[in-house]
């Protein structure tokens, strides 16, 4: 476990420390934080080892860094759950250069089906995994983020303000298959392709 207080003391030391070692500066910091006098001294001395020629990384070093990064990020994302959740499919699509129409075309959907997904009015469990993966690829977020997004309450009731004294009931979600069948924009072939996913 990290000692947060020590971390902050070292931050303060590093923020204003002279480029070269300065005994007076170190002593002043040690006087302010006597409980970390040893740690400050160690930190100040080992600063010396940051100097010198830039080391070159071998192919082995780079491979270790890449693999290490993958493992670390997987651990971080697994721990953080909701921290990296999608806020909006359309906003993310816009960030990737798509408008609603081109996003729908890329996903093989109609604009109205995109609207249903955006507002989460479709039962998440009924959306084909292949489609979720496809959207995850288009948005470059991965399928898990899309699946997590769709599994939340419908957008127009989740967190929305309302004027009546009671919260309106959440509109019943449709199955994905029903939404496809009722769609007015897709051709029969396009509908069948979606229903076959």
């Amino acid at each position, binding site marked *: 476990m*990290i*000692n947060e207080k*020590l*971390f*902050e*003391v*070292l*931050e*303060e030391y*590093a*923020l*204003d420390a002279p480029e*070269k*070692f*300065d*005994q007076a500066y*170190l002593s002043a910091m040690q006087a302010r934080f006597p409980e970390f006098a040893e*740690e400050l*001294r*160690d*930190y*100040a*001395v*080992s*600063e*010396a*080892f*940051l*100097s*010198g*020629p*830039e*080391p070159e*990384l071998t192919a082995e070093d*780079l491979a*270790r*860094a*890449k693999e*290490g*990064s*993958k*493992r*670390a*990020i997987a*651990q*971080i*994302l697994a*721990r*953080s759950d909701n*921290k*990296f*959740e*999608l806020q909006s499919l359309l906003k*993310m699509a816009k*960030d*990737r*250069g798509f408008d609603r129409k081109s996003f729908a075309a890329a996903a093989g959907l109609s604009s109205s089906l995109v609207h249903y997904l955006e507002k989460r009015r479709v039962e998440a469990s009924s959306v084909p995994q292949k489609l979720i993966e496809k959207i995850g690829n288009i948005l*470059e*977020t991965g399928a898990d*983020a899309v699946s997590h997004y769709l599994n939340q309450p419908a957008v127009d009731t989740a967190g929305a303000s309302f004027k009546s004294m009671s919260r309106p009931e959440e509109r019943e979600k449709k199955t994905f298959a029903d939404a496809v069948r009722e769609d007015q924009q897709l051709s029969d072939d396009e509908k069948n392709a979606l229903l076959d996913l």
Partner: protein
Amino acid sequence: MDSLEQGSSGVIPLTKIAGTGKVFTRPPEVEQQIEEVVTLNRDELKRRASIVDHDDEDYFRDETIVYLLRTAAKDGDQVFIDLMGEMLSTRIEKLCKRYSNAASPISVDFEDFVQDLRLFVLERVMDNSSNAGDFAQVRFGKFVKMAADSHKKRFLTLYLKDRDFLNHPIREENDDDTLDKIGSEELPTDKMLQMKDFFDCLTVEEKKIVKMLNFGIPIERNDPSAVTISSELGVTSRTIRNRLKSVREKWNSVM
């Protein structure tokens, strides 16, 4: 979340307050690069993030990569999380190699330590619910180093110290005036290459002495509480000067 609100330049400002009472600010050259970066399209960002040549004018500073990773995490942008995470991981590897060069060979323990450090740094940078990682956008190298020092019970410091220094026979005392130039970051490129050869032929203990001397730590002082090379390495000043004589001979043969 206040910490994620963009400033007028489109750059998310730092919010953490240092012990001095001042809010952390990025160095001007970092701020300027980030202001430029937020106007780039994704393909250009990917291209530039992959540049590894430090002298390339499009090379991203460490602190810029930190900013991009943090915003990617905020947006749930998996592609950029992976890309920037890998780039930052490479920079961490390079920093750690500086340490391992000072105390080679790399042990299995050291590799485990680097992985722990990588996890800690990436997690802190990506955590948008906190501004605890703000300093990584101010001085990334120092951020990693202090993470190393405070995260693992001073593992790094102990690692650097825990080596044999006294395996060489005592030689006659000599001065160390040529060493002012050693380790200087201001040398021209050809000299830097020679410097690399020079460092490669130093022993572990010689490297440590040279680095500390170049950093401004005196060999010895009358004040017993002062930081000196002698007190840090637990050897006499005479022994240190003997090591320096050997260093000087190598310096003259390489440079």
